């Protein structure tokens, strides 16, 4: 009889080879305890965190911690219900109003995770005769949303507005609405969307535009609203989807929009309706983190400086790092034989980053994905660059002549 588990044999042997080559399972790293936003205890050692997406360091915000403690005392630890049944408390509506108002939008829907926000919005907005037009390098939550939707799904070449235009033109005359989905900053590579060009295509073709600002919210734009604010094209964005689990340091997802029909999406959106709502302490902490974000624009300035420092340092020592400066900086390596020992050596020497392997990477090459924080000190960044140099030399990813 066929084993239920035979489909995992490929994964099991790939994982076996990974562990054999490097000594560790890169997908089972345990952060025993955060010491601060930038340092965690891993394998008993204090380790610099350069792979946590905690861009502003707000997971350790004193204001958010205090708000969560107060909310737990007042409301208890959970809602035990879904948003459309018993899972909406006044806090949930308050957070929706605050996030909508921070974006200057009519309304917001809050989801239990960022993944569910994409899954829910994308699967619900488009119907059977509609078209979803996705960037080829979209996050898994976007692809999964497209699979849950009955719409026809078309991919366009990554960050290529001309290609998007061409594919929309091919659909001229077909019935059905068209929804373009792009991300602000792409999570694996740190590539920033050319959002002004995308918005121009949207205007010309009459499509709708959804922008996932998961990695760009709190990071780009004067108020930290993301790439659309930075490029001055917010008015062209019909739906902004985002997450609380990056720059705001908590967990949960959202969609903001000026379309009044968002209220009807609530009653048609399965990943919103059929899951438990966020617990009160998370809502309270998120609202406090949003205040931190509004009150401390200097965090974004510092984040930009820190990202530029790490980016310049990587290029100086000869690493093949992202072209654009953003808080996600990916170092591309040619082979797994370089990437696995280098990632392990980095951790031995006290730097944690994410090891990203094909096919989860865009061009079949492994990535050492780093995320920078506003709270990193210049000394921590310089130390990380030096450790990258040492690990890169030992793994054969860097040549000795490059100093």
């Amino acid at each position, binding site marked *: 009889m066929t084993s239920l588990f035979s489909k995992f044999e490929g994964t099991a042997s790939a994982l076996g080879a990974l562990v054999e080559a490097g000594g560790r399972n890169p997908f089972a790293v345990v952060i025993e305890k955060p010491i601060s936003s930038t340092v965690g205890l891993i394998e008993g050692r204090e380790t610099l965190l350069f792979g946590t997406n905690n861009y502003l360091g707000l997971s350790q915000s004193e204001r958010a911690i205090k708000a969560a403690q107060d909310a737990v005392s007042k409301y208890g630890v959970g809602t035990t219900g879904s948003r459309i049944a018993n899972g909406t408390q006044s806090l949930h509506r308050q957070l929706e109003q605050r996030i909508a108002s921070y974006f200057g939008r009519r309304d917001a829907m809050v989801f239990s995770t960022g993944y569910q926000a994409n899954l829910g919005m994308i699967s619900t907005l488009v119907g059977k005769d509609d*078209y979803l037009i996705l960037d*080829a390098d979209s996050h898994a939550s976007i692809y999964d949303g*497209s*699979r849950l939707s009955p719409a*026809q*799904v*078309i*991919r366009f*070449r990554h960050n290529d507005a001309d290609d998007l235009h061409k*594919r929309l033109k*091919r*659909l001229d005359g077909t019935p059905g609405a068209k929804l373009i989905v792009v991300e602000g900053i792409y999570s694996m590579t740190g590539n920033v969307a050319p959002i002004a060009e995308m918005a121009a295509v949207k205007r010309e073709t009459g499509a709708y535009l959804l922008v996932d600002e998961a990695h760009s919210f709190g990071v780009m734009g004067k108020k930290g609203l993301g790439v659309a604010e930075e490029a001055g094209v917010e008015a062209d964005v019909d739906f902004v989807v985002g997450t609380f689990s990056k720059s705001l340091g908590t967990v949960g997802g959202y969609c903001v929009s000026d379309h009044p029909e968002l209220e009807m999406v609530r009653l048609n959106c399965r990943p919103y309706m059929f899951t438990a709502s966020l617990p009160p302490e998370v809502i309270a902490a998120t609202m406090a983190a949003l205040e931190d974000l509004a009150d401390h624009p200097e965090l974004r300035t510092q984040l930009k400086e820190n990202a530029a420092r790490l980016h310049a340092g990587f290029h100086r020592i000869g690493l093949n790092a992202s072209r654009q400066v953003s808080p996600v900086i990916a170092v591309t390596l040619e082979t797994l034989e370089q990437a696995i020992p280098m990632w392990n050596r980095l951790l031995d020497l006290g730097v944690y980053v994410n090891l990203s392997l094909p*096919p989860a990477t865009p061009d079949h090459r492994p990535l050492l994905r780093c995320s920078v924080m506003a709270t990193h000190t210049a000394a921590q960044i310089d130390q990380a660059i030096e450790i990258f140099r040492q690990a890169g030399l030992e793994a054969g990813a860097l040549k000795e002549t490059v100093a």
Partner: protein
Amino acid sequence: MSETVESVSALIIQKLLANPKVPRDIDGNCKIMEDLAFDSLAVMNFVMEVEDTLDVSVPLDKLADIRTINDLAKCIVDLKNKG
């Protein structure tokens, strides 16, 4: 449009053979993922190239039903006739 399943299939094979990793003895009945060892991302990227040559878009949901090179060719011809 003058494309037939045979002509599109021949074009797909010609494009595949431009990739040195693809076995030399492929024909229209080859299964794209199993016989050519393409993962899902490689299939999507390859289909994008074919789309541009033939000026057609193959929706991703249609890809789920496509196993062989001829399946892909038939799907493209159907889409072109519909358009």
